[in-house]
């Protein structure tokens, strides 16, 4: 999805030029300590070494089963929880350091939460909720309210009717529009949508998705779109990242990843997705059982206990995230030349 | 279970130390000097210093606290400034009297409270239910020292049925389990029982109504269990909470007995506290408050452990 030329210059605040990733994540780790019966200290490896870039103007979809670390990744990216290690580079500047303190980073990066009701203060009117951000950032009260009203109109909610309402007085779709308006109130460049449409009815979901696409074009936004719904991700994303047990298993252009997946896990995810088109149904094996416990993940490739291609080598060696095509990277020994996996392509072919 | 008890103990220990610290500091909140009440106004500086040294008031506060705590841990609560007798003995004697009164009041409160609570819980929105909720509002709203006065007015001053004050006919200050002494116990115990009656009635009503509304009761009835069988189930499920509330109420009554004991001149801790406050007998004040608060801490612990032991639904980790 390219930036529409008629839009106001989206790169006005750009530093590193269009080729520099807007957000560059590397070596992100987050382990949560848990105490099991018996007093032994253990950790949940919620995010366990994640690297990816978000390109300017794109929509990066992040998919995976529940518990794969999507939401933890989102919270880490927003600084809502502290990362154990790893770095975030925003337009080339290290977030959390002097050049880019969290405060100024957050003015450029905003988030829309899944639960439209829980993410709005029940004691504040819609307008107050939207105006809160600009107000705490030094915009005068009247100006903030004006901005809130303009944004309400922009997300399709007539200010006269909606500005003074409380969250419980409007529908779920309307609430999510309010949440979107709030996320835009600080004029961010990157918006992180964490399951933002998952709780909505299908028809409402489609409207909100279209609204998101329009806003993206109008304001020159970049999206990170987290969802468990592959259809929605396919609709909105330019690139897709698949996560499994706190790791990236595959990342690449939507069409490539979702039509010709290289990782057996992506294949299985796609197969488990209901399709209306009989010709489109794959014969690949469905996912069996639940994902393993992230407290004690399997050795080697974390997917091997559920994988159809699993071989002894898979439980010994951790697969690196390897490039298999243009912009397409996969962490699977069966796709890695010279890995020792019987299905691995020959070294010469990959070169 | 053992692990649970140990955990509770670990949690209670710092609280107990905090309580001792508060009791200790209480005395130093007092305006003026702890000794000023007993020393003659024209005492020489030498006498004052001598007295201070004798009671240890000349040392810095933290040292005083540690010394005091050390003595307390060995069962020595100091000597009463007013009477010169050991505080522990005075407090123990008074505590026994108070405990008798509070226990009887708790038993009365528990009996009537559960009775009203069960009737109200079984027949929600009936006249009995209304009466029970009126009773519980009455119980928590009535100034019990006033209620004591009213009872004295009615049953002693007007009808002459029961004695108005004291613990017994001889005025000895010690209650004994015989008929004569029992007559002296009735009015204060009934007065004190009003609060626990109201609170227990309210709690039991909610518990019973809650249990009866659950699916398993329906299932028991469907299996053909008679009403008495169902009743037994309700009792078994309501008992842990009701007993826990009862235990805590005993502690509150003991701590709050001072007002009622004053009305009835009952020779308990309340009476002792009153004397300690107005004679500014600070070691006695400190000692009696410490004993009462510690009793409450231990009672809380026991209630907690008992409730956990009785109630299978509470996690014992």
């Amino acid at each position, binding site marked *: 999805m390219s930036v529409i030329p008629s839009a106001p210059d989206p790169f006005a605040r750009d530093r590193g030029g269009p080729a520099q990733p807007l957000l560059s994540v590397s070596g992100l780790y987050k382990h949560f300590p848990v105490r099991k019966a018996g007093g032994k200290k253990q950790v949940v490896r919620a995010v366990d070494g994640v690297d990816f870039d978000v390109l300017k103007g794109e929509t990066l979809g992040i998919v995976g089963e529940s518990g794969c670390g999507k939401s933890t990744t989102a919270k880490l990216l927003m600084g809502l929880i502290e990362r154990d290690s790893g770095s975030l580079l925003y337009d080339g500047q290290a977030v959390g350091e002097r050049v880019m303190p969290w405060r100024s980073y957050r003015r450029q990066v905003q988030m829309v939460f899944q639960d439209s009701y829980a993410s709005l203060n029940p*004691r504040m009117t819609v307008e107050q909720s939207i105006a809160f951000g600009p107000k705490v950032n030094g915009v005068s009260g009247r100006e903030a309210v004006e901005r809130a009203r303009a944004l309400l109109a922009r997300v399709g909610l007539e200010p006269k009717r909606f500005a*003074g309402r409380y969250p419980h007085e409007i529908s779920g779709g309307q609430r999510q529009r309010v949440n979107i308006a709030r996320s835009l109130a600080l004029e961010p460049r990157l918006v992180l949508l964490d399951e933002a449409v998952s709780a909505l009815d299908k028809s409402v979901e489609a409207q909100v998705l279209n609204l998101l696409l329009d806003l993206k074009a109008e304001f020159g936004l970049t999206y990170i779109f987290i969802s468990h719904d592959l259809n929605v991700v396919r609709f909105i994303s330019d690139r897709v990242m698949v996560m499994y047990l706190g790791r990236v298993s595959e990342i690449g252009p939507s069409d490539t990843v979702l039509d010709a997946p290289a990782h057996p896990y992506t294949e299985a995810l796609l197969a488990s997705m209901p399709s209306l088109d009989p010709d489109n149904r794959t014969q690949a094996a469905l996912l069996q059982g639940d994902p393993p416990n992230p407290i004690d993940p399997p050795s080697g490739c974390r997917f091997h206990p559920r994988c159809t291609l699993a071989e002894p080598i898979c439980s010994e060696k951790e697969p690196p995230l390897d490039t298999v095509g243009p912009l397409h990277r996969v962490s699977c020994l069966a796709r890695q030349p010279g890995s020792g996996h019987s299905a691995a392509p020959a070294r010469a072919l990959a070169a | 279970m053992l692990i649970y008890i140990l955990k509770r103990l670990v949690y209670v220990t710092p609280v107990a130390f905090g309580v001792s610290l508060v009791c200790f500091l209480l005395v130093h909140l007092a305006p003026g000097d702890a000794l000023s009440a007993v020393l003659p106004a024209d005492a020489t500086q030498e006498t004052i210093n001598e007295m201070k040294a004798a009671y240890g008031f000349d040392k810095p506060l933290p040292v005083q606290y540690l010394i005091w705590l050390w003595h307390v841990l060995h069962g020595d609560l100091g000597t009463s400034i007013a009477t010169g007798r050991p505080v522990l003995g005075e407090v123990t004697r008074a505590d026994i009297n108070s405990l008798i009164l509070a226990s009887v009041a708790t038993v009365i409160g528990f009996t009537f409270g559960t009775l009203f609570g069960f009737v109200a819980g079984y027949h929600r929105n009936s006249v009995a239910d209304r009466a029970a909720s009126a009773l519980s509002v009455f119980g928590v709203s009535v100034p019990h020292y006033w209620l004591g006065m009213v009872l004295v007015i009615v049953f002693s001053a007007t009808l002459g049925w029961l004695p108005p004050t004291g613990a017994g006919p001889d005025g000895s200050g010690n209650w004994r389990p015989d008929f004569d002494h029992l007559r002296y116990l009735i009015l204060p115990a009934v007065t004190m029982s009003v609060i626990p009656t109201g609170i227990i009635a309210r709690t039991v009503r909610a518990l019973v109504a809650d249990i009866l509304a659950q699916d398993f009761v329906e299932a028991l009835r469907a299996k053909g269990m008679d009403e008495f069988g169902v009743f037994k189930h309700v009792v078994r499920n309501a008992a842990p909470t009701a007993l826990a509330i009862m235990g805590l109420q005993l502690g509150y009554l003991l701590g*709050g007995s001072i007002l009622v004991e004053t009305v009835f001149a009952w020779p308990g801790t309340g009476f002792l*506290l009153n004397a300690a406050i107005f004679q500014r007998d600070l070691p006695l004040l400190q000692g009696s408050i410490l004993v009462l608060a510690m009793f409450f801490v231990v009672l809380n612990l026991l209630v907690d452990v008992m409730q956990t032991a009785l109630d299978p639904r509470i996690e014992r980790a």
Partner: protein
Amino acid sequence: MTAPITAASMALDGGVLSAGDTAPEAAFVPSRGFWGHVGHRLVRDPVAMGAGALILLVVLIAILAPWITPMDPYKGSMLRRLKHVGDATYWLGSDELGRDMISRLMLGARLSLFIGVTPVLIAFVIGSAIGILAGYVGGWLNTILMRTIDVFFAFPSVLLAIALSGALGAGIFNSIVSLTCVFVPQIARVAESVTTGIRKRDYIDAAKLSGASPLTIMRVQVLGNVVGPIFVYATSLISVSMILASGLSFLGLGVRPPEPEWGLMLNTLRTAIYANPVVAALPGVCIFIVSIAFNLFSDGLRAAMEIRQ
């Protein structure tokens, strides 16, 4: 770019930006806000309204007492001691020093209300602040604050009140201070638990993302959500506070003679329970009525606030 399902659902989508998801729009009801709803429900509760009216009446009498008492509440007459209720001059009788009971009860409402309500008000402010801080900040600050509060919880409240005012000495100020110390931990504990429940809500995260300082978030986003439940809890304490405050005066630890205060009047009239029992019990009736009114009003308020959100 298009998957079958999305394509199908897109077809359902009429005007993209016409707020199409305004499900069959019901007749528009103007927003009342939370407190508007509570007030609306409260006025329909006859018991709470009756209790509220009674409280208002007592407050009015307390405020206007110096101008509306039929007689001088301080001037006694040893010849006219302990007149009975229904006396031609002394409508509600006279006390042990021959002072007019009704005038003293009216003026007594002032002090009784003042020493009963003030501790709860102060404790409401301090306790909420401590509880919200502990609940919102969490971590070690929470541990320190809440463990300290646990220590105060280890004392039964009557004992703590009497111990504190006993140590501080008699007087109105000391009695208010000790009762405040009794209620601060109770209110702080409620405030802490309510705040802890709210701290993890998404809207608090959203507020953090807007760059607001913790203080601003507590003031703007947290306070509005926790103040209701804490307030209801505080109103339920007023009745206890009235009883305890008058109890302290009854013991001689609060208001000092000759000021009229219900608890103190009850104490001084104890000597008269044989001569004139009805008059002796009157101050207690006043405490009881006001206390029950506060309890009923608080119950009504709690019920009115249990609104589906």
